[in-house]
């Protein structure tokens, strides 16, 4: 087990700059998830840590070892691949023992370690089977077992659940979480699925265009997104954004005007911004309340989705063409075609400036 320290990491493929001056610290025993849209560099970053790609510039340390030029087997990392990549002609036992054999481990220790890994992953019954005789979830566990068998310092996962169907994905997600509690080893996990990120991570790293957009606990990312991108990426359904104009304010709060909602007094620190500045106001669907339409504050309901335990109400926006979403517990008294007023929970409103940075709420912001 080890902590991972990345400093000023760069990766260039030909003329494409994939990873740009990236710094990151992963603590010993932490479960870190890289998320981001496709093309953000999250998989490349994982492969750089694995040693499958080399860094163009920068330094990478595992514990106190500089690993920049070490091949994967000398780094002490194990990796679980998206397609599992099990050796089709080997049994489960042989799959897990292959790396140990290549490391010239003696036969007894190999057996001991494979059996121990199999016990943890409940694979004992399957050891003599070939991969094609296994179900998707079982293959997934074997892939993890193979990565774990050599007792790597760091376990890497490259979108390991994306080949499973929805219900199995939830089950495996749980198993991975429990595995982490039990082993306590450092794990780095790549996914594009924000639900996986939220449920598994101690720490989420949101990547965008080869740079870190924000690092933090799931809670921090959800409640205090540092940028509009993070605010929009984390949370489902996504946050509602509306244009807003700064009317005035200081270090203790501000007033903004938003089409439809009118004037709002918010706790955000607006010092340094001049009145008239273009802002973006963000509210999560559950932080909106619907009321009877009232003057300007009237939005038409264009669709109502009933999900059993909750209801999504879609509203025609005053600007742009992304529908606004309201989420509440079922049942809902609102119906299609109605015109309603939107009342945001002032404590839960986010403001983003023209560069998409979030405006801090009196000192509370620094924690992010």
């Amino acid at each position: 087990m080890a902590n991972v320290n990345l400093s000023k990491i760069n990766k260039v493929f030909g003329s494409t700059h994939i990873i740009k001056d990236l710094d990151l610290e992963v603590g010993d025993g932490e479960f870190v998830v890289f998320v981001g849209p496709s093309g953000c560099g999250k998989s490349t970053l994982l492969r750089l840590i694995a040693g499958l790609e080399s860094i163009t510039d920068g330094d990478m340390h595992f514990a106190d070892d500089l690993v920049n030029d070490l091949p994967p087997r000398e780094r002490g990392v194990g990796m679980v691949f998206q397609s599992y990549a099990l050796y089709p002609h080997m049994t489960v036992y042989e799959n897990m023992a292959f790396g140990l054999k290549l490391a010239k481990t003696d036969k007894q220790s190999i057996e001991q370690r494979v059996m121990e890994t199999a016990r943890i992953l409940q694979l004992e019954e399957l050891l003599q089977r070939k991969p094609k005789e296994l179900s998707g979830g079982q293959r997934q566990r074997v892939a993890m077992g193979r990565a774990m068998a050599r007792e790597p310092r760091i376990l890497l996962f490259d979108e390991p659940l994306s080949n499973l169907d929805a219900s199995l994905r939830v089950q495996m997600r749980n198993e991975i979480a429990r595995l982490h509690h039990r082993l306590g080893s450092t794990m780095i996990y790549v996914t594009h699925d924000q639900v996986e990120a939220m449920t598994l991570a101690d720490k989420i790293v949101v990547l965008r265009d080869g740079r870190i957009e924000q690092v933090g606990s799931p809670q921090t990312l959800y409640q205090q997104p540092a940028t509009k991108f993070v605010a929009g990426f984390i949370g489902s359904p996504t946050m509602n954004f509306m244009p807003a104009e700064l009317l005035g304010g200081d270090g203790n709060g501000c007033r903004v005007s938003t089409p439809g909602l009118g004037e709002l007094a918010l706790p955000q620190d607006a010092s340094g911004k001049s009145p008239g500045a273009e802002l973006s106001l963000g509210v999560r669907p559950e932080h909106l309340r619907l009321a009877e339409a009232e003057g300007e504050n009237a939005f038409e309901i264009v669709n109502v989705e009933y999900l059993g335990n909750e209801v999504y109400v879609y509203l025609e926006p005053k600007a742009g063409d992304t529908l606004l979403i309201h989420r509440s517990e079922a049942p809902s008294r609102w119906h299609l075609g109605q015109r309603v007023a939107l009342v945001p929970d002032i404590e839960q409103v986010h403001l983003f400036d023209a560069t998409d940075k979030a405006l801090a709420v009196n000192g509370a912001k620094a924690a992010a």
Partner: protein
Amino acid sequence: MNRYQQIKLAKQIGKWALIAVIMVYAIFPFYYAVITSLKPSSELFQVDFWLSSVDFGNYAQIFSQDSFIQAIGNSILVAISVVFIALLLGVTASYALGRVRFRGRTTVMLVVLGVSMFPQVAVLSGLFEVIRTLNLYNSPGGLILSYTIFTLPFTVWVLTTFMRQLPMELEEAAIMDGATPWVTITKVFLPLMWPAMATTGLLAFIAAWNEFLFALTFTLTDSQRTVPVAIALISGGSQHELPWGPIMAASVTVTVPLVILVMIFQRRIVSGLTAGAVKG
């Protein structure tokens, strides 16, 4: 029956007639060779479409000749050795060409392809000299060496297309497990390549078994010849006195194993041929 049904029926008849014609066209020459080989020499010159009686005299005659048995032995030795060498060199080369990006890869691919296009006669004099220098003239060794000129490029080409189809993540998993390229080939890829190897090996075997020009030129004595040369050189007093019975018996003898192989592995052969050509 209305017009539509009539047209449909006519189409069916036409299709089956065409199938019948093709079947006869494909099979009849071989069938006729079998019939001829099973006739007693007295009935040889009378045209029959089927056999009234079976006579193994022609077979007895060719198998009583040591040179024919030696020729079969030589053909087997040469073909199997060639397949073995081509696969050995081909698997490692195809890993390099199919899975590693490096400067000069395209050039090597073009060289391999170019060699497979060589007219054999263009290297005949130079190869003759090489074989004589290596003291391999009039021996199976000379044929084994010279046959690599057409089996090796072909093997490399087909195996490369198969190698490319193996998933990248499998190789990366092996790298994570600490496997060197050699271990990756022998422990991970080779067990998965057996179908491809069997196909390629079979095609190389057929090519080597059937080769004629080199075998004719680089051997001198009866005991060193391969079967195709032995058959081509069976002769009688003159063109009109060729011993057709024994020739047909010998022809059937060397063809039957191939036909059986083709029947068994037809799916494999088709995939191998098209992998070599369509993707080339």
